[in-house]
């Protein structure tokens, strides 16, 4: 039995365009192709007479096909903490295990799942020693998970939260377990970027290796210069992010996805108090183009990348519960989304910001979809330069990109971001109600890009 998928091109956006068909090699394919051509002919813009008009029927391996398959990797639920500005914001005195523990507990509590049902937990983290391998085990016990549930961490820089999801999906797909938790956490208040670790002196003789040490801000300048993304364009992009995030916060859009966290906070006089954090504190509703234009370049004297058009340094955590559909249904758990495709690609380290421009097409290809089929793109705004470049390069209509704002306004807690974007994406699609596809993508320091395609099944 061979599995083929036919994609009817030229369909209305949002239509299921990929039809998964099981064909017995001994059966004639003629019948199936004929029917596809007939339907395709009805949709062809030329509207010529007869069923064999200029219909394009492409046959491809495609994962965004039938709505229901027992082996689908589905997202059951996801939550995040609010995002706090590093060193000055809500979580400046909060250790990452507390952030992580809060989201892990909340996700399972919301769906009434006992933690002993989890086959594994994977947490994205970048800055903690050993990517936080010990810290996350502590977090698990703070959440009251039994010691029988294993946990580990993954570090692929800014994509770690999404990589955690890929890893858990992989574990489900290879039959290791049916349910897993994919998380991401970062405290940039308590740890900083900077130490490259122990690297050979030979690095200096190897151009690509040397490029891995380029500060992220300089890679942003590289992208801006190479691809002609002006300061004005970057500032406009940044303004848009702040405005969208402001509006969303005002309308209470994030209430659905944020789990409030009670934590300690030490104020200026050294007094410690307890606060409840439920709102992102990085958003600046009063941002204006003039205000952004006044900011000095942050990385290079005559550069265009400023603090205002870069992502913020932040603290936060997110958790996403994934499962094999058959088990999810057997346990009567809800299905909030379906993972349809994953892709990770490599790009030049000195231009790391272009990652999404390569990762997104790779993921779309695997899912058999095109940009037109996707309703919402969550593209991490590491810098306005690279985000704007990727959106333009892929021809994505701006209204589809980060409708509730991005990292420039919300913040970019490194290990958390990927998981946070998934939570924000699926909640947005849920709000819109209809069946739709969404994409999460980000660039990765040292030169990579990652992307995932999700399907929201519709209310």
């Amino acid at each position: 039995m061979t599995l083929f998928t036919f994609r009817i091109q030229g369909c209305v956006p949002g239509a299921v365009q990929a039809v998964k068909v099981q064909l017995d090699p001994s059966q004639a394919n003629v019948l199936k192709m004929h029917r596809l051509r007939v339907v395709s002919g009805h949709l062809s813009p030329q509207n010529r007479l007869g069923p064999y008009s200029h219909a394009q029927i492409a046959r491809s391996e495609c994962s965004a096909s039938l709505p229901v398959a027992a082996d689908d990797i589905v997202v059951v639920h996801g939550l995040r903490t609010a995002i706090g500005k590093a060193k000055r914001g809500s979580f400046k005195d909060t250790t990452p295990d507390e952030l992580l523990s809060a989201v892990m507990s909340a996700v399972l509590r919301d769906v009434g799942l006992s933690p002993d049902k989890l086959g594994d937990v994977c947490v994205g983290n970048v800055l903690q020693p050993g990517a936080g391998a010990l810290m996350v085990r502590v977090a698990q016990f703070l959440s009251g998970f039994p010691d029988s549930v294993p946990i580990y961490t993954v570090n692929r820089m800014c994509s770690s939260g999404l990589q955690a999801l890929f890893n858990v999906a992989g574990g489900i797909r290879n039959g290791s377990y049916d349910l897993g938790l994919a998380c991401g956490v970062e405290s940039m208040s308590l740890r900083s970027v900077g130490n490259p670790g122990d690297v050979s002196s030979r690095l200096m003789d190897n151009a690509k290796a040397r490029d891995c040490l380029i500060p992220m801000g300089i890679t942003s300048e590289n992208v801006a210069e190479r691809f002609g993304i002006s300061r004005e364009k970057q500032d406009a992009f940044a303004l848009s992010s702040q405005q969208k995030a402001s509006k969303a916060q005002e309308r209470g859009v994030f209430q659905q996805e944020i789990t409030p966290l009670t934590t300690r906070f030490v104020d200026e006089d050294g007094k410690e108090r307890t606060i409840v954090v439920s709102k992102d504190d990085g958003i600046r509703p009063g941002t204006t183009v003039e205000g952004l234009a006044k900011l000095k370049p942050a990385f290079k004297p005559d550069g265009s990348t400023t603090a205002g058009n870069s992502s913020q340094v932040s603290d936060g955590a997110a958790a996403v519960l994934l499962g094999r559909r058959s088990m999810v249904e057997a346990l009567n758990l809800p299905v909030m989304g379906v993972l349809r495709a994953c892709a990770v690609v490599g790009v030049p380290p000195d231009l790391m910001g272009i990652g999404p421009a390569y990762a997104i097409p790779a993921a779309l290809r695997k899912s058999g979809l095109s940009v037109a089929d996707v309703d919402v793109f969550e593209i991490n705004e590491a810098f306005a330069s690279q985000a704007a470049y990727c959106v333009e390069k892929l021809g994505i209509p701006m209204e589809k990109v980060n409708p509730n704002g991005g990292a420039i306004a919300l913040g970019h807690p490194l290990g958390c971001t990927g998981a946070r974007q998934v939570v924000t994406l699926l909640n947005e699609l849920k709000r819109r109600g209809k069946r739709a596809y969404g994409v999460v993508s980000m660039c990765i320091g040292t030169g990579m890009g990652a992307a995932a395609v999700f399907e929201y099944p519709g209310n």
Partner: protein
Amino acid sequence: MKTFRCPSRHGYAAEISPFLPSRLACAASQHYGIAGCGTLLVLDQDEGGIKLIRSFDWNDGLFDVTWSENNEHVLVTGAGDGSVQVWDTANPRGPLQVLKEHTQEWDLERPQSLCTFRGHEGVVYSTVWSPHVTSCFASASGDGTLRVWDVKMGVSRLVIPAHNAEILSCDWCKYDQNVLVTGAVDCGLRVWDLRSTRQPVAELLGHSYAIRRLKFSPFHRTLLASCSYDFTVRIWDFSRPEPLLETLEHHTEFVCGLDFNLHIPNQVVDCAWDETVKVYIPASLADLQPCAD
């Protein structure tokens, strides 16, 4: 609006029983009708919703369904393998008869075809008996013509080059024996008067993709409904200068099936590739009084 979900089955046709206003049938197929099997769903609607009475499976997709008009238990479906099945809702085991050879017309009393009508040069997508003249029926074809036939003659009585594109559906006006409507791949509906076929009486534009099916209202002379690949169902009154009365966007996939209820004024059933069958009264019709014209 009442919705019936049929997981993994994509609706191609829906029809309400002429005998029982609460009874409806939907011909649905697996894998969007491209491959796999088909299921005939016999449903019943009440204030609470729609429930399944009986379902019948066939090993190819089912693409059309109609109720018998002389026996309330009997229905007929058309399948992708070219056969026609006769079902009895009281008999769960399988079809009463299977008639294979889709180019021919059948009398259920006799297992052989009565007559073959040749003339079309493309796929015949739809045929409809005239509600006024007993021996007369119309057909819509991929060759772009609407043809009117008389059973007593073997050839078409009238050939109308109605569209420059495949015509997927046609229907007779229930109040005027000379009026028909066609819906085509060119996204337009055209209303025709058989007495002067040079140009249409009205052209109804609004759909953005091919029209899959249309039906004239049993209660209003100039009212009709259409469903399309553009996911919408639209209600039209071709006597008005602005004929589009309402656009219903309650489906997320191609809408293929459509019918009016003969007993409950202005009630409509539709079915779509999104695995749902819906029954509702469109808002634009809800306030109208049925006219006896």
